[in-house]
């Protein structure tokens, strides 16, 4: 396997081998972070376009950092500073980008399926930075990388994802990726936020938080999107916190080595208690650092980088 597929659109379509290859390369890039000079000249002279059709801070910065550390030329465009209007076709965007001969596209879009669409039209590699409620593969990979660093082989390990599963692309990418690596995934949230037929993706559903966390090795706590508004899916932030918030009381139920993840940005004292967010069980900043490494690995591999070259220490 000299290089990856053309695009990374979701973990659904990636094999366990591909996922592990990305993670191995990401570990090598992660090692570069501790050096005085953190960039490598792998992408010099190549242009990566970051197209964010939906507001994003963390993911966009993480991609930018990854691209900069690979010495790529970067063009950013987002809804706020472009002429996009509601209903405008992605096809026009894609054809323009194609004509400008870019080397790679990173796309975040509010519509599920938009990354697939762009990948079909564009000849350059496309990385999905989150499409609607569908997938967020780089988040899935960085989550899995963080778990693997602590747990090693994920086969048989128990991961509990808590929150608004229905609207979460993070949950879907976690479910696909963890499933391929043999982990046992449980999803937990109010029934209004757990979509029908989710079991068919190979997960267990547990509505009772205490039961859902009891045997877990990892809790992945999803961000409650407050902009969706309380009052329909759940009565209030206070009640959500009471019933599904990861509090000190919940942490006490965990296995001794179990740890807590959150994709950020956090709503303190809604889905996660502030003490837990700052406590010894969380690995949130590891996730952030791994995010840059995972994105570097994907960009490297999608631009034709040889997985073996890094192993010999040449590129890194």
């Amino acid at each position, binding site marked *: 396997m000299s290089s990856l597929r053309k695009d990374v659109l979701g973990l659904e379509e990636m094999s366990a081998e591909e996922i592990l290859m990305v993670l191995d390369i990401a570990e090598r890039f992660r090692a570069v972070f501790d050096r005085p000079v953190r960039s490598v000249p792998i992408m010099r002279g190549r242009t990566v376009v970051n197209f964010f059709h939906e507001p994003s801070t963390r993911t966009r910065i993480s991609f930018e950092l990854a691209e900069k550390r690979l010495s790529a030329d970067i063009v950013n465009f987002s809804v706020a500073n472009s002429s996009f209007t509601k209903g405008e076709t992605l*096809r026009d965007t894609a054809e323009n980008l194609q004509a400008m001969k870019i080397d790679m596209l990173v796309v975040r879009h509010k519509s599920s399926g938009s990354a697939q669409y762009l990948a079909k039209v564009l000849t350059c590699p496309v990385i999905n930075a989150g499409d609607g409620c569908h997938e967020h593969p780089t988040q899935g990979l960085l989550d899995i990388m963080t778990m693997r660093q602590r747990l090693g082989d994920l086969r048989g390990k128990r991961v509990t994802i808590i929150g608004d599963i229905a609207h979460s692309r993070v949950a879907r990418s976690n479910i696909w990726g963890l499933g391929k690596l043999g982990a046992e995934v449980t999803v937990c949230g109010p029934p209004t936020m757990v979509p029908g037929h989710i079991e068919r993706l190979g997960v267990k559903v547990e509505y009772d938080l205490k039961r859902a966390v009891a045997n877990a090795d990892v809790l992945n706590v999803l961000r409650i999107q407050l902009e969706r508004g309380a009052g329909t899916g759940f009565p209030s932030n206070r009640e959500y916190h009471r019933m599904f918030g990861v509090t000190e009381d919940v942490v006490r139920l965990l296995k001794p080595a179990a740890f807590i993840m959150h994709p950020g940005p956090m709503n303190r004292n809604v889905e996660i208690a502030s003490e837990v967010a700052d406590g010894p069980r969380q690995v949130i900043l590891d996730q952030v650092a791994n995010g840059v490494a995972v994105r570097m690995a994907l960009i490297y591999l999608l631009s034709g980088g040889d997985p073996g070259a890094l192993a010999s220490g040449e590129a890194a």
Partner: protein
Amino acid sequence: MEWSWQRIPAEYLVTGVKLAQGGKIGARKGFLHVKKGRVESIGAGTPTVEGVPALAADGLVLAPGFVDTHVHFREPGQEEKETVASGSRAAAAGGFTTVVTMPNTDPPIDNAGMVRYVIDRGVESGLCRVLPTGAISVGRKGETLAELGAMAEAGAVAFTDDGSPVASGKLMSNALKYARLLGVPIMTHAEDLTIVGDGCMHAGYWSTRLGLPGMARASEDAATFRDIELARAGGAHLHVAHVSTRGSVAIIRRAKAEGVRVTAEATPHHFSLEHSRCRDYSPLFKMNPPLREPEDVAAVADGLADGTIDCIATDHAPHTATEKELQFDQAPFGVIGLETAFAVGVTYLVEGGKLDLGRLIQCFTERPAAVLGLPLGRLEEGGEADFVLLATDREWVVTPASLRSRSRNSAFLGETLKGQVVATFLRGRLTWHQEEPSLG
């Protein structure tokens, strides 16, 4: 005497055909004798009428012209999608001689003048009998009853706010009662929008997997149930448009058994395609009601087979390529269906063992005519000579070039279908024929 597609005489015979009548396909060769747009005679055998040219259509099935109770021709206001003329061409290519147009145009068909406008456009194109429905409410806003009486007098054959459900139960109840006076049905687009929310495909495994907001079956079932109960209470004729769920089929079946005056239609895509078709996010599989689960598809087919669902209607809903290039959640609902309806019926219902050919043809002819209470969908001596010639075993591939609609948003593009409409005649006049007709 000479008989050609180019010159259809005022009087002619079509011979050697298998006649589709009353749910049966004639075993013996039959004929149709047309004179001045009317059926002079029809029956078995091969008559020789002195001096009358004969078209030998050996092996083809001759059926009454098809009747579609549900099409969107978009005129006035959205002529970039379809016009009455272009829609009529698509209808003729699909074997239809009568179509019922929906009132969700811009402006909507909510007064007698607009009803006459659509009728006039239909007469002008001359390819199809275009029968408009009028809106139930002024502006299709669901607030005030439109002038149903004046519209009925102008030629409206039914009333519906199709595309938008009538949210107010009181308004729906009044419309049903009032329409009794006029002897026409109220068609319901049965959907509870408060349940559907921002849903854009069937709520099920695939919506969960694809991360798209779902449209629960309950939204259709609840609305179907409400409107049937209102029709029962008002003693009115309710026609349920585009039935897509197992639950709605069951609700209608029970209501019919209890004597409620309810009729129903189903679209070709709802008895053939499942929600898994949405897997690549193609808006060509985005319609309302959405494609549902295998058991729903089977229930719709069973409903057609046992008569719970009276007829097949296309819900022909043209949209431009640009609109259907949008992302799945942004693209408009709807697919075209006139050109493919019969073939989808043969391919999925007849080949699928659900209906025999004779019953399928009834779903396109007598049964929709009965829903409308119009003397169409049959070939009888003295009646108008609306008929089609069908090559029921012929396979063809659906391509953009095989479509006559102004739009190309078919859910069957690329599919090989069985059953072809070879020629369509409206009042004895040819409105469509395959480019190189190989008869028989």
